[in-house]
């Protein structure tokens, strides 16, 4: 592909990314604003149908909410496709926290200070806390430098889904989950260190030390894969990669 066509393709991807991200933000904000409009009239409403309606929905909210949800999802898919291969931020991972934290904020805002003189509304506060927890939990992955790098400062990659998958997998597998205290793998030992072929075997939480089946060859393959990923990312020069690979193979052959 000549340079002119490459520049055009990159420009088109950037434009599509801008439009899709802006559209997603529009939809997210519309959902949040619609929710506030419903909470303003007491938290529940209805419109249309043959029944007598106690509380009419604010004008437009009845269709804005479902349309915004589906268009927002489509915009998110478009954002991911447009961003493949481009450098810089990949904020797809923040979509879930953005949705749940914005809605959680609405619940808490109206829960502690509902319209009228009703005092605190415990039901809304409980919903707010649940939504905030659901929004915050995925953000723990940002404790990983590799995940932060991928999400906020990534390099241009070949525009293939496989590459994007590999980057995400590398970020996830290189993360030391012990930092969160969720996975206890302190007791796991490398089979090569212990001399016991069965050591370190067990469930998937020990995979980073012992491999899927706990065998030394799986461990070696894992380490070689991680090394290759680092080289591909540019963290290792060709010489460093070759030296480290030779060292690994030497250790693995013992």
């Amino acid at each position, binding site marked *: 592909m000549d340079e002119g066509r490459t520049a055009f393709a990159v420009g088109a991807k950037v434009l599509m990314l801008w439009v899709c991200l802006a559209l997603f933000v529009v939809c997210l904000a519309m959902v949040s604003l619609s929710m506030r409009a419903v909470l303003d009239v007491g938290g529940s409403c209805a419109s249309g149908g043959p029944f007598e309606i106690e509380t009419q929905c604010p004008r437009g909210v009845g269709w804005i909410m479902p349309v915004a949800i589906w268009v927002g999802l489509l915009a998110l898919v478009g954002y991911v496709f447009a961003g493949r291969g481009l*450098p810089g931020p990949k904020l797809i991972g923040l979509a879930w926290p953005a949705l749940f934290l914005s809605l959680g904020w609405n619940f808490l805002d109206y829960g502690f200070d509902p319209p009228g003189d009703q005092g605190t509304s415990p039901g809304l506060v409980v919903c707010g806390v649940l939504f905030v927890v659901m929004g915050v939990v995925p953000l723990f992955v940002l404790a990983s430098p590799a995940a932060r790098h991928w999400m906020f400062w990534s390099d241009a990659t070949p525009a293939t889904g496989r590459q994007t998958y590999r980057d995400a997998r590398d970020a996830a597998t290189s993360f030391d989950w012990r930092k969160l205290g969720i996975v206890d793998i302190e007791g796991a030992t490398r089979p090569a260190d212990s001399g016991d072929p069965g050591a370190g075997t067990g469930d998937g939480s020990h995979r980073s030390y012992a491999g899927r089946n706990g065998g030394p060859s799986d461990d070696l393959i894992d380490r070689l894969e991680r090394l290759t990923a680092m080289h591909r990312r*540019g963290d290792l020069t060709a010489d460093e990669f070759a030296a480290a690979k030779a060292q690994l193979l030497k250790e693995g052959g013992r």
Partner: protein
Amino acid sequence: MRSTSGAKLFMWGIHITAVVAGIYAAVWSFETLT
């Protein structure tokens, strides 16, 4: 493939302008439609 800091900052600019424009468009649209 390594990318320059300028390219990454440019993409950050694209993201920030899209988010700001999206918020303004949403508020304006919501007030218009409701």
